[in-house]
């Protein structure tokens, strides 16, 4: 295409209220695409393997995580198994951790847990879905380890000094899930009802669940 043949006039000016349709491929995007094509060409993976994996990841969301937490709140034996071996315990619920292992860390009256991955964006994707953008941001990844209490405050979570803040950097083979404390005023609630108040951010440990 040598001339602009998409419209009736050339586009050396902006139309108010429209965004130019620019879709430049970045360097790393291009590298990833080249790698993908090579792997398919060499028969290491098939295009369908890739598609199925993407489909699986896109089908995951924090609802599964909420069910795990609600069951731990209502079933003490399950809670013990979950804290002992998270990977095995979630398998009971038909959930997989894929190639990683799950460590569940429990919030108590004395301890608050918070998850970060400083090296990249490791996250329990198979039980929470894809991580939010802020979790992958350089700002969160660096500040969560240096000044966790300030970061928590920005999420609206202010904790007294009497409570220990434990930051978990998921830098290797473990993935982490925070088991929050069951909020007051929810005694006797069914697991289904409890699951609805367990948010994604509560399971990353940046907020506390609210009844």
């Amino acid at each position, binding site marked *: 295409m040598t001339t602009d043949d998409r419209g009736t006039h050339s586009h050396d000016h902006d139309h108010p209220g429209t965004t130019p349709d620019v879709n430049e491929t970045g360097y790393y995007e291009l590298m990833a695409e080249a790698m993908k094509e090579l792997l398919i060409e060499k028969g290491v993976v098939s295009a369908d393997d890739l598609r199925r994996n993407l489909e699986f990841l896109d089908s995951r969301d924090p609802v599964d995580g909420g069910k795990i937490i609600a069951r731990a709140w209502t079933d003490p034996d399950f809670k013990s198994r979950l804290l002992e071996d998270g990977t095995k315990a979630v398998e009971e619920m038909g959930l997989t951790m894929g190639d990683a292992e799950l460590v569940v860390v429990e919030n108590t009256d004395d301890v608050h847990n918070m998850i970060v991955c400083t090296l990249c964006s490791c996250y329990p994707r198979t039980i929470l879905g894809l991580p939010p953008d802020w979790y992958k941001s350089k700002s969160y990844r660096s500040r969560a*380890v240096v000044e*966790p209490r300030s970061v928590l405050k920005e999420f609206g979570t202010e904790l007294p000094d009497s409570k220990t803040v*434990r930051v*978990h950097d*998921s830098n*290797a*083979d473990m993935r982490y899930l925070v088991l929050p404390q069951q909020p007051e005023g929810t005694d006797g609630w069914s697991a289904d009802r409890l699951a609805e108040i367990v948010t994604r951010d509560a399971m990353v440990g940046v907020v506390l669940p609210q009844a």
Partner: protein
Amino acid sequence: MTMFSVGERVRIKDSHPPGHRRTPFYVRGKTGVIERYCGDFKNPEELAYGFDGTPKRELYRVRLAQNDLWENYEGPASDTLDLEIYDHWLEKVED
């Protein structure tokens, strides 16, 4: 028998080899306590270059005091940072 036991004080090596490493810079040279042994895992520093990742490495969770990591840390002395370190990055600390 694992190389390190829970509660043992360890130092994370202050080493700076080039290449793909899973030990973040901010903990290198710092001392902490073994929180748990996670199991044996393929070495990601080998896997990254197409090797098979063997021999497997013992992976530990090490708990460090935030006060030992950062000067003028904002919180109380009890705050901690836990992370995973492979055995070849750990050394014993003589009491």
